[in-house]
């Protein structure tokens, strides 16, 4: 086996040193009746070339080269090549969690920079080293608010990513936390009147997403005012991190739970991604996850360490703020490098391109179909309502190597034949035009079929 650095002679010499007759002696503690005396039924050992071929075949079966108009919590942005050149360095890729600060300063300093940039972008005072993803970060942020307020229930906007809400429901159910869902209005934003009545004296926090699942930017200030007036905290989930380049961050939030996938993390069929929680300094001791802090060594030199570990499971066990241990360090490093590449000016320009592509696309689609939720600003997603079932339209689009918007029937049946479309800087005008053209064609054919039926009825 090519990963094993031992010759048969080495093994013999080692067994001899130990005083064992054969390797079986070392497995003697396992009761004989449970020992597996056969080969595992897994595929035979493959050569590296065969492994590459096997996965190439899977890659081809997985569609390749389509123009993608899907977003909904996973965004297709360009990834600068230096991200992979750097994270593939063995010193980053194959390092452990930086508990031993003396030989982990590379990881620690880069996490400190990550925490700084996330704080800058979110307008918060502190950010942690990462969480699993945006959905679990949102659930953990809510539980943080529960600990901070001593209240038990949560008001969740229905315009939060449906799968994030499902994850929250899973966590909340077993914590005995009641969830109230708050509807959205015609402009796609949270219904503030409904929110007023949804918040009770037991509401720990309000959870909104902005830009929300439909791409609409919430009026976070107004939501914050209501939540705070009633003694609840405001947790804001951000699924599309690029929006922070051009949209004011939700500074009135108490906790921000983010998904940083847009910052240079491949779509990768849904993971690994990079969650992160940001908040105000005063709440840091209730924050879940790892934190890196600056300190000095014995000669007074600046250095970094994992800190405030008394919040964590390996110290506090059942009294920890969360059971999280392994997080998404390498993915956070991807995000870190991405943020460094684009920086202060580039992120804004990148966000502006996303905004422009989306404005153009919404306009093109709007000529023939209905673009829902007008009247509130959006970032890079929009909902298109068609006469025909979007699944049928999408299957025709696929013939043109285009993956159309996400049909919403499963999540929002009340929206009818609606689909959530997403444009990024990688959406070309020609793909947008083709997609909008096919949607227009669908509208025309449905309309003419209707007219024909109407004429027949008239005759």
């Amino acid at each position, binding site marked *: 086996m090519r990963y*094993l650095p031992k010759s048969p002679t080495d*093994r013999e010499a080692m067994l001899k040193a*130990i005083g064992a007759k054969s*390797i079986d002696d*070392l497995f003697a*503690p396992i*009761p004989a009746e*449970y020992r597996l005396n056969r*080969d*595992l039924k*897994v595929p035979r050992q493959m050569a590296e070339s*065969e*492994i590459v071929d096997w*996965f*190439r075949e*899977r890659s081809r079966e*997985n569609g390749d080269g389509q123009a993608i108009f*899907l977003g909904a919590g996973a965004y297709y942005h360009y990834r600068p090549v*230096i991200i*992979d*050149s*750097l994270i593939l360095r063995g*010193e980053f890729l194959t*390092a452990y969690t930086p508990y*031993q600060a*003396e030989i982990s300063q590379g990881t620690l*300093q880069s996490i400190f920079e990550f925490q*700084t*940039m996330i*704080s*800058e972008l979110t307008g918060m005072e502190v950010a942690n*080293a990462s969480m699993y993803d945006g959905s679990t970060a949102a659930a953990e942020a809510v539980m943080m608010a529960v600990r901070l307020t001593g209240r038990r229930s949560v008001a969740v906007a229905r315009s939060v990513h449906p*799968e994030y809400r499902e994850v929250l429901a*899973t966590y909340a159910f*077993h914590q005995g936390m009641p969830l109230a869902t708050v509807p959205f209005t015609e402009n796609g934003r949270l219904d503030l009147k409904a929110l007023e009545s949804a918040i009770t004296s037991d509401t720990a926090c309000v959870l909104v997403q902005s830009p929300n699942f439909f791409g609409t930017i919430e009026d976070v200030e107004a939501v914050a005012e209501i939540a705070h007036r009633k003694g609840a905290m405001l947790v804001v989930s951000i699924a599309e991190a690029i929006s922070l*380049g051009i949209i*004011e961050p939700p500074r009135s939030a108490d906790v921000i739970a983010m998904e940083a996938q847009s910052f240079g993390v491949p*779509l*990768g*069929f849904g*993971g690994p991604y990079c969650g992160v929680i940001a908040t105000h300094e005063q709440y840091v001791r209730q924050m879940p996850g790892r934190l890196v*802090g*600056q*300190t000095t060594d014995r000669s007074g*030199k600046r*250095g970094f360490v994992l*800190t405030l*570990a008394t919040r964590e499971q390996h*110290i506090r*066990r*059942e009294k*920890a703020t969360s*059971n999280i241990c*392994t997080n998404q360090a390498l993915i956070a490093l991807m995000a870190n490098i991405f943020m*460094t590449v684009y920086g202060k000016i*580039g992120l*804004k320009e990148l966000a502006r391109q996303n905004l422009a592509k989306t*404005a*153009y696309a919404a306009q093109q689609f709007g000529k023939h179909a209905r673009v829902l939720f007008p009247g509130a*600003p959006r970032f890079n997603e929009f909902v298109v309502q068609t006469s025909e079932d979007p699944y049928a339209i999408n299957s025709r689009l696929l013939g043109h190597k285009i993956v159309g918007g996400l049909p919403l029937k499963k999540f929002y049946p009340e929206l009818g034949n609606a689909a959530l479309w997403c444009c990024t800087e990688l959406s070309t005008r020609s793909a947008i035009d083709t997609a909008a053209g096919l949607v227009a064609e669908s509208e025309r054919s449905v309309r003419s079929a209707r007219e024909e039926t109407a004429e027949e009825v008239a005759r």
Partner: protein
Amino acid sequence: MKHMTRKATRHVSQNEGLIFEKSSPGKAAWKLPPLDVPEVDTNELLGPLERKHLGNMPEVSEIEIIRHFTRLSTWNYAIDLGMYPLGSCTMKYNPRVNEVVSRLDGLANGHPYQPEKISQGALRIIKTLSDCLLEITGMDEITLQPAAGAHGELTGLLLVRAYHDSKGVPRKKVLIPDSAHGTNPATAATVGYAVENLKSNASGMVDIAALEAQMNEEVAALMLTNPNTLGIFEQEIHKIADILHAKGGLLYMDGANMNALVGKVRPGDFGVDVMHLNLHKTFSTPHGGGGPGSGPVAIKKVLEPFLPTPVLISKPDGTLGFDYDRPQSVGRVRAFYGNFGMFVRALAYILANGPDGLRQTTEDAVLNANYIRNGLEGPYDLPYASASMHEVVFSDKLQAKKGVRTMDIAKRLIDYGFHPYTTAFPLIVPGALMIEPTESESKEELDLFVEAMKAIAEEVEDDAEIVRTAPHSTRVARLDETAAARRPVLRWKPEA
């Protein structure tokens, strides 16, 4: 240094400030293509929501970024540099072909919501890995959704809870041995269970009599790590399972130490009902400085109705798809399907090994641990004489007489070119040195390690101060953790 180490010497280590300290206006590492749609008036579109300033984000050029992170990287220890004997962390070689195949276009750029018709490759990977893991564990069903080990524990206990709830008799407690990882009690609390501590016996194993006394109809499950964190296989595992099952409880196995078992024995065969695996331990996906992980949960048939949604299914037409209609499901534990990129890597590892390679891997891992045990018994105190599997736990009892503790020895090990072992864990061994070499170490590297540890033991006798003040060869040493926690500085700020 009294003993010249054969493994490490000093080398140039460049100073490198924070990226913000290199920033100056006008530098850039990015270039966007010309916009092919009309420009927009952001003020008109966004009004007051438009962001004007991005705070103290850096402005630097590409070469500076490359040098910055490359210099930082040289301050890290890594498996690629040498042995990482962290107990229960299983720091093994991360094969590079895993990285190549996970970056193939169709996999790296696959959108989680793209139609099933063009997702068959990804689904086939999930299916193949699931089948392999079920065969390896001897379990019946599996979910790959959990994002890491602790997340797997959470999922596993949710399943346990749903199972008992479905019987109409919810239970209140989870039993956890005193040798368990901290995540176990933290997870039980997250799921709403009270944690009850279970004492180990003199051999470092579960005390069967204590278990019998503590087991009753209020106990939902026992969370057991096997081999346990002392590296000892629970020899009375069948009795443990029987005691639990007799009172309607379930046996949860923390699979952190699965590297001792693959191809030799299957948890499903010795009575485990639910367990998690750590793909970033046993199945070679990189730790990456603390993640991403992946924590699949494998279960017996009785727990199947409760699996998180969605569940992968084979359709009548031979294609694969997801089933979302699962009325008894515990719900989702994560958006999408889990850390798919880690599935690709773990499967590549299994394919590279095959049945013979997996078995040899386990044998070598156990051989290596026993070789170290043999080499260090004597110079170091071995608190439990029971046979070791893939890891061995010593204590600092002998060295403590000279005022040297396990953390000091660990720090001194750095000077000899090794990453420290796990210190002060498991909690049942005061001053523990927990050592897991994994199969990835050659005899030569193991000999160097044993030599280094013996040399440190001698130093403790002759010149304890040099050990107490180690490390002496790193850029920074003995960072002030107390100050860091007392007045946390968690981000950079420009000087006022």
